[in-house]
């Protein structure tokens, strides 16, 4: 068992180093330590699950070891900026003032095609409109356009639009979510009035009803079965 415990620690460390060396693009939205956990844990669980000749502990001890290591590493990455940089890397500026930083691209093994694809996915076709493009530690690209290229905001136009707030679901597929209704300070009587106003007889006939912080109601009736 101690061999399984120590092998788990060694392999975990090696795979994390491997993932870090592979570059940010491989990481996806997880931290390297979390990605490694996700990669390993399913396999570890599958072996004793299928092979009855192996004690359950053979799977449980490495899984518990991995969970503890991930927990310890995630606390360390929260507490120490330096440790976080070592484990997760630092963001890389790929485009600066509209110019490609080719050395950073090479360092991250990030191709031009991938950059253009990421920009197109964000609705940007002209590289010269990009002030900064940053390859984040989770492998995603953050793009900051030049001020002149950014959409005008209501504030810039001197407008003060009303804040609708978060619409909450009150009726979901015919079911009234009473907790949400009450948390918005609304009553069953208010709901009945709203249904009447929308010419609906029963809550069961409503597919979706949401209310925002301005008490604006959105109601979608259920379609009749065909």
């Amino acid at each position, binding site marked *: *068992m101690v*061999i399984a*415990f120590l092998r788990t620690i060694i392999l975990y460390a090696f795979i994390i180093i491997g993932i870090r060396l592979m570059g940010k693009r491989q990481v996806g939205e997880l931290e390297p330590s979390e990605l490694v956990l996700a990669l390993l844990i399913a396999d570890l669980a599958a072996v004793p699950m299928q092979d009855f000749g*192996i*004690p359950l*502990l053979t799977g449980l001890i490495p899984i518990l*070891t991995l969970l*503890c290591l991930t927990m310890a590493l995630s*606390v360390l990455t929260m*507490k120490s900026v330096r440790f976080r940089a070592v484990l997760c890397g630092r963001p890389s500026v790929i485009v600066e003032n509209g110019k490609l930083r080719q050395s950073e691209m090479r360092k991250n093994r990030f191709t031009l095609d991938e950059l253009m694809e990421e920009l197109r996915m964000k609705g940007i076709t002209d590289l010269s409109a990009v002030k900064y493009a940053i390859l984040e530690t989770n492998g995603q690209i953050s793009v900051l356009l030049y001020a002149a290229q950014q959409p005008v905001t209501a504030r810039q136009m001197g407008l003060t639009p009303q804040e609708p707030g978060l619409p909450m679901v009150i009726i979901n597929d015919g079911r009234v979510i009473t907790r949400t209704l009450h948390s918005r300070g609304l009553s069953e009587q208010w709901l009945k009035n709203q249904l009447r106003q929308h010419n609906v007889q029963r809550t069961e006939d409503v597919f979706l009803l949401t209310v925002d912080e301005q008490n604006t109601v959105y109601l979608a009736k259920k379609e009749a079965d065909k």
Partner: protein
Amino acid sequence: MKRFWIALLLLGAIFTGTLFHIRSLHGFTDTLAGLLEQADELAAAEQWEQARTLTDQAKDTWADRDVYLHVLLRHADTDSIYAGFRETLALLDSREYGEYAAANARLITQIQLLYEAEQLTLKNLL
């Protein structure tokens, strides 16, 4: 930071537990091997009844920790040792020293390998 210490504490507990398991297994396999070696010496001196008593005692010692062994060791290994005991006892009854000695030596090796496979050595780790 509390989570960090909990994680470290758990890792320490697992490590200590596994070391304790090795120590316990070492004592256990040594006891069994000792009994079986004594039985072999008695059988060589044609003291078959005493040899059988010692082998039975070793088998009972093994059976007493059956659950512990099944939880911690590969079932193929534990099953093979149990079969080894049965074979050795049968050969003791037949009083064929040559075959008994070979089966007994094989059983002792299998028991000792249990500990060797769990031992904390660089060879096992790699």
